[in-house]
């Protein structure tokens, strides 16, 4: 089928047989929940649709539904995501399997509806697992995979699948939509867990704890998040066996063999980076690309493994932590602390500003000089910044 990223997400939720949808409209996500309403209306999807009055309530309703044993879905973006932030912590703390689509969008003010990863990356400490697909196809595949991962008893953590506003959400591409029976085989209906609310086995979920218990609850979330790495890889392989597509688990390694220099990035502009890598390889540069597919849990070891023999890394990201630097760069630098690899950090594409493969080639050429002169800029470079006085 020819589908946009948003419609691919709606098809994925349908194929996953979600039975409770709680959602609130926000650009550029709205098409997902419109499509799902359509599926329910015409009988293609058997689910309850809770048309909530806010994103905060959307996540609260997903939590209520998951606590009783349903398979919920919601989608949001930007302001909506930040508004539901309190409930994101709640969902992870309550150890409930929930999958959410996040169409990454810049935060106001000033108003902007275009892509920016700061919305979802600002929520990286909530306990949610966070995936960044690169294409509409991967959006569909990742959402189906996400239910399997989230519902695994070793994980039991909610998952956000995040893709770029417009570049992915509204761009159409050929998407292979799997057969329902194959998805049913891959993803059986949701299990009942020990902490699923049940009148025959009553218990209180989330009672007040004293300091003697709280710490353990947090430790187990971290433990589950770490355990999920293995599950994420296994699920990706299992998916490949049935559907013929896999994405490398937590990171995609693109032409990394014998690479001297690596790009590291995530999200929509990965395609342009791959194009830049191909062109640079044709010119004889030994360059590759690590695409971070999953930023939580953070794939420290996967990245280290690929990077241990390289001469320099170029991190390009569409997000920022004010007063510090790029969020992705900060994470990668901390993971690579022991390796002492020169890293140049670029902030690009903020608020949806277009960055193409020519830009990545320029970025590489500049960085290449820096690496050779051993003159590594300490601060992140805001690529294409127009300084206004």
């Amino acid at each position: 089928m020819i589908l946009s990223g948003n419609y691919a997400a709606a098809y994925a939720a349908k194929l996953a047989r979600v039975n409770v949808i709680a959602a609130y409209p926000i650009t550029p996500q709205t098409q997902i929940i419109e499509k799902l309403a359509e599926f329910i209306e015409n009988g293609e999807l058997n689910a309850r649709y809770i048309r909530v009055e806010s994103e905060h309530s959307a996540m609260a309703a997903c939590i209520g539904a998951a606590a009783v044993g349903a398979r919920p879905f919601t989608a949001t973006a930007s302001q909506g995501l930040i508004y539901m932030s309190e409930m994101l912590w709640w969902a992870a703390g309550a150890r409930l399997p929930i999958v959410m689509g996040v169409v990454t969008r810049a935060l106001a003010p000033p108003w902007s509806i275009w892509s920016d990863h700061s919305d979802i990356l600002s929520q990286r400490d909530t306990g949610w697992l966070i995936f960044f697909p690169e294409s509409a196809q991967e959006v569909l595949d990742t959402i189906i995979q996400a239910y399997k991962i989230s519902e695994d008893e070793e994980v039991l953590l909610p998952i956000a699948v995040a893709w770029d506003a417009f570049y992915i959400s509204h761009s159409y591409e050929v998407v292979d939509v799997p057969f329902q029976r194959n998805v049913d085989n891959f993803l059986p209906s949701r299990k009942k867990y020990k902490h699923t609310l049940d009148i025959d086995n009553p218990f209180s979920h989330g009672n007040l704890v004293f300091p003697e218990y709280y710490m353990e609850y947090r430790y187990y979330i971290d433990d589950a998040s770490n355990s999920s790495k293995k599950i994420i890889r296994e699920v990706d392989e299992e998916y490949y066996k049935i559907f013929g597509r896999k994405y490398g688990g937590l990171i995609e390694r693109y032409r990394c063999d014998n690479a001297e220099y690596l790009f590291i990035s995530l999200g929509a502009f990965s395609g342009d980076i791959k194009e830049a890598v191909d062109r640079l390889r044709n010119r004889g540069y030994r360059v590759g690309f690590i695409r971070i597919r999953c930023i939580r849990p953070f794939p420290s070891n996967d990245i280290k493994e690929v990077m241990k023999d390289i001469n320099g890394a170029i991190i390009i990201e569409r997000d920022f932590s004010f007063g510090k630097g790029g969020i992705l760069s900060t994470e990668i630098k901390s993971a690579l602390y022991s390796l002492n690899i020169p890293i140049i950090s670029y902030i690009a594409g903020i608020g949806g500003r277009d960055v193409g493969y020519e830009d990545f080639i320029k970025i590489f050429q500049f960085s290449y000089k820096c690496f050779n002169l051993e003159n590594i800029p300490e601060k992140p470079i805001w690529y294409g910044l127009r300084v206004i006085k």
Partner: protein
Amino acid sequence: MAIKDLPLEEHYIPGSAACPGCPASMALRMVFKAIGKKMIMVVPACCTSVIESLHPYTSFDIPLLNIAFEAAAAASSGVAAALETMGRDDITVVAWAGDGGTYDIGLQALSGAFERGTNFIYICYNNQIYSNTGIQRSGATPYAAWTTTTVGGKTEFRKEMGEIVQAHHIPYVAQTSIGYPEDVYRKVKKAKEIKGPKYIEILAPCPPGWRFDMSKTAEMGKLAVETGAWALYEVENDKITFNGKSKLILEGKMKRKPVEDWLKLQGRFRHLFVPERDEKRLKEIEDHIDMLWRRYRSWVGIEK
């Protein structure tokens, strides 16, 4: 129904962390008796987050989901939707929230759940303050009442939550008071049998919050009704009926007691009486109650 005829069934079990004389714990007993075991309760931040007891214990013998302060109604929508997908129409979903979580921070979610027809009972136990955080003013706090954030007495009158809820035209809206446990029981029992959104508000006099002796909770709940500061009524499909003493007051068969009889017993209104009587504010309170009852009479078509 007399108290002696209430079911012996208890799902409010020993180990509760409630204060002595706590009206919420009295009301919870009635709710559990009226609904029985087949219920799921959703509790936002409120005194009940403590009353239910501390991990790893619980004093409720029913499944309970704790949720964030403003989210009880929305989470209930999720619980109700999940139960519908499972065909479990035998389980009653109850949101149990305080007045802070209902009148103030939870109002948007509450309105949303009522508007979209969630099949649940939302019960607000109204102690007219943020009590769990230690007696701060809420939208339900009455005029002139002392709280830690209105040390000279609240300067505004409370909002009429019952009227806000009635504007949603849901199948069942009721006000009751823990002074009349059998009225609480009857209303919850009735709500259980009705499909769609139901709202019950229970006046819950709080001994430490209102500054009265812990043995007087029920008495304070009765006096609020007898003085007309609180009304017992129920609205079924937009048809309103006043109950108990409120019905007698409404129909002029009983004269409501002066509100001072209720105020005087509460430390939170002490500044209206000592060092000297604050005639101005006492009259304002009395006038406000008169105005409220004129409105009640107009609802039922009794002109006055």
